[in-house]
């Protein structure tokens, strides 16, 4: 189908504002990505996949301004032993980052590797390309073509600490595009952390290839700067008996679209994607998930919880696709919202598409208010209404947080949530 002129125009306008990094091994992948992008065009409001989320501000040539949040709060994960890699408004900050040397992993920057041949060539833009079918993800193609930097993480063993990507937002008009690639070798295991608001507008892509028996853990928080915008993509491919677990905490942000595209290609693999979001006012948060089961006896879980108030909007589009032959698939999907007032809304589109007969898939989506019985019970024990509401909110979100396997990380997230909730109240 020919692209509508309006899409062609919008896409060229956006591209005119960008400059493609030149040279090195990624050149061919970037050129391919640009061709892909031009063939599909950037998303518009009329696209079915963007029915609940207006892509305008994510695709327009200039990033809308976003104020920088002044806070004395310690960043998430501060107290943890981790290898820090810092990006400020999308620009790598060597002084603030740790040395990349760590046993069991090799880390390089996308911007640094001018070599003509690199292991990441087999992945950069490759998983993204695979993820374009059956639904187009033009912002991810744009990312592959124009990413200015990112990290290339090759995990060969079991590094002793997490790789922690730290984003800071300093300029009110920054527009950052980062692309990370993670390759986890057979039997290897890594935890990748991400935190902070990256820029006024952030387009991020992460491609993760998890070999047989390997494990990838991912925990991120998206920062509290209220006016920031982000479109992120996670593409993962799982080998036999491998494990993928990703959790995202989002608080504030006027526009967030987190897409996660997972392909279970080896038997007995496990994938979990979970998220907790706290939305207030003009907050808009969209989780769009696509999990493909293409092997036998794999398990996948989607657990998403959103707490919305003062007119905030939450979106969930989650799909489980079970391909022919993917027998014994166990697919679980739940998306729930807690609406603290009647102005807020939750839009959910759960989908199952199954082409195998021996599968167990379940999905559920609910929207509810605070449980008045429970609230009264807490208050009758002397807990005032505000903290009692917080406790119930935390308990609502707990099911998503519990998907984090590492207890210390789960605790860190829970504490942060509790602190943010009580701060919201004051």
């Amino acid at each position, binding site marked *: 189908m020919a692209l509508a002129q309006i899409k062609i125009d919008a896409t060229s306008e956006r591209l005119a504002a960008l400059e493609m990094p030149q040279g090195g091994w990624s050149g061919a992948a970037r050129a391919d990505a640009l061709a892909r992008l031009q063939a599909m065009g950037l998303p518009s409001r009329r696209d079915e996949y963007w029915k609940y989320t207006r892509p305008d501000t994510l695709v327009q040539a200039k990033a809308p301004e976003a104020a920088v949040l002044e806070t004395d709060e310690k960043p998430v994960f501060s107290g943890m032993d981790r290898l820090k890699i810092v990006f400020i408004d999308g620009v790598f900050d060597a002084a603030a980052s740790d040395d990349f040397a760590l046993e069991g992993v090799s880390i390089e920057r996308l911007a640094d590797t001018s070599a003509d041949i690199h292991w990441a060539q087999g992945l950069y833009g490759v998983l993204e390309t695979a993820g374009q079918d059956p639904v187009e993800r033009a912002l991810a193609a744009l990312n592959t073509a124009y990413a200015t930097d990112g990290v290339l993480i090759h995990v060969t063993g079991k590094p002793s600490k997490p790789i922690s990507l730290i984003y800071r937002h300093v300029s009110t008009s920054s527009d950052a595009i980062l692309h990370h690639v993670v390759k986890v070798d057979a039997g290897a295991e890594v935890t990748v952390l991400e935190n902070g608001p990256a820029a006024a507008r952030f387009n991020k892509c992460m491609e993760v290839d998890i070999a047989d028996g390997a494990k990838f853990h991912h925990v991120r928080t998206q920062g509290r700067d209220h006016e920031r915008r982000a479109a992120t993509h996670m593409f993962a491919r799982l080998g036999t008996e491998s494990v993928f677990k990703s959790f995202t905490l989002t608080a504030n942000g006027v526009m967030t679209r987190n897409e996660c595209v997972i392909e279970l290609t080896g038997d007995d693999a496990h994938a979990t994607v979970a998220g907790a979001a706290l939305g207030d006012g003009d907050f808009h948060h969209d989780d769009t998930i696509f999990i493909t089961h293409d092997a036998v006896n794999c398990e996948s879980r989607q657990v998403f919880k959103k707490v919305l108030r003062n007119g905030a909007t939450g979106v969930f589009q989650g799909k489980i696709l079970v391909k022919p032959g993917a027998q014994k698939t166990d697919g679980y999907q739940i998306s729930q919202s807690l609406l603290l007032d009647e102005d807020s809304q939750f839009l959910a589109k759960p989908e199952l598409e199954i082409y195998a007969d021996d599968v167990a898939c379940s999905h559920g989506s609910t929207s509810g208010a605070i449980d*008045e*019985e*429970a609230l*009264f*019970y*807490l*208050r*009758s*024990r*002397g*807990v*005032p*209404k505000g*903290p*009692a509401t917080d*406790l*119930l909110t*935390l*308990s*609502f*979100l*707990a*099911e998503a947080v519990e998907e984090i396997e590492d207890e210390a990380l789960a605790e860190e997230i829970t504490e942060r949530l509790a602190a943010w909730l009580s701060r919201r109240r004051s």
Partner: protein
Amino acid sequence: MLNIKNLHVSLEEEDKQILKGVNLTVEAGKVHAIMGPNGSGKSTLSYVLSGKDGYTVTEGSADLLGEDILDMDPEERAAVGLFLAFQYPVEIPGVGNMTFLRTAVNSQRKARGEEEMSSTEFLKVIRARAKDLKIDADMLKRPVNVGFSGGEKKRNEILQMAMLEPKMCILDETDSGLDVDAMKLVADGVNALRNEGRGFLVITHYQRLLDHIKPDYVHIMADGRIVKTGGPELALEVEQNGYADILAEVA
């Protein structure tokens, strides 16, 4: 301690009167029991006293330790010293029993301008109290009342009461669903809290609980009023003859 005068209560949603002039005074150090047919308004009285939404007081008053409680929020009443052991304790998934109790204890202390209890002290106290009620460590860690058996929920109510050390304790059918041993445990828990400064209002259908928790007075509630008051022997009479005679006598 607790003074209820001519209390009239209707449902907020529909025009239905449930309490039709309750008069009751519970003195410090005394145990009052309330019995009465199903639907006579016993739980409603306990809810109205503790501040649950959905009821409108159309007439009368209730004060605790000289303070008018009917206009207070539930948490304020708790801080003054009111405690209700629920007929149906509520399950709260995701909130640990310990966290819940510590938050409750410290919220009340804060409201009263007292110092908060440190986590070590809290742990020490709760372990001892839990042990008395045969509540194991696992139950303390689990989410509030989730997956607890009926009897475990009731024991958990008594644990909360023991931790919060209220002035005025209302127990709504805490004995229902308890086996003989659990009933003894619960009664021991209540008796341990009996002292000069504390009042009890025990709602029950059975004389058996009153064998363990000896009441000073027994009241019979029917159709939203207290229709008869007597000593422990009144409970025995109900046990033997049911309510028919009493109701006929006062009608």
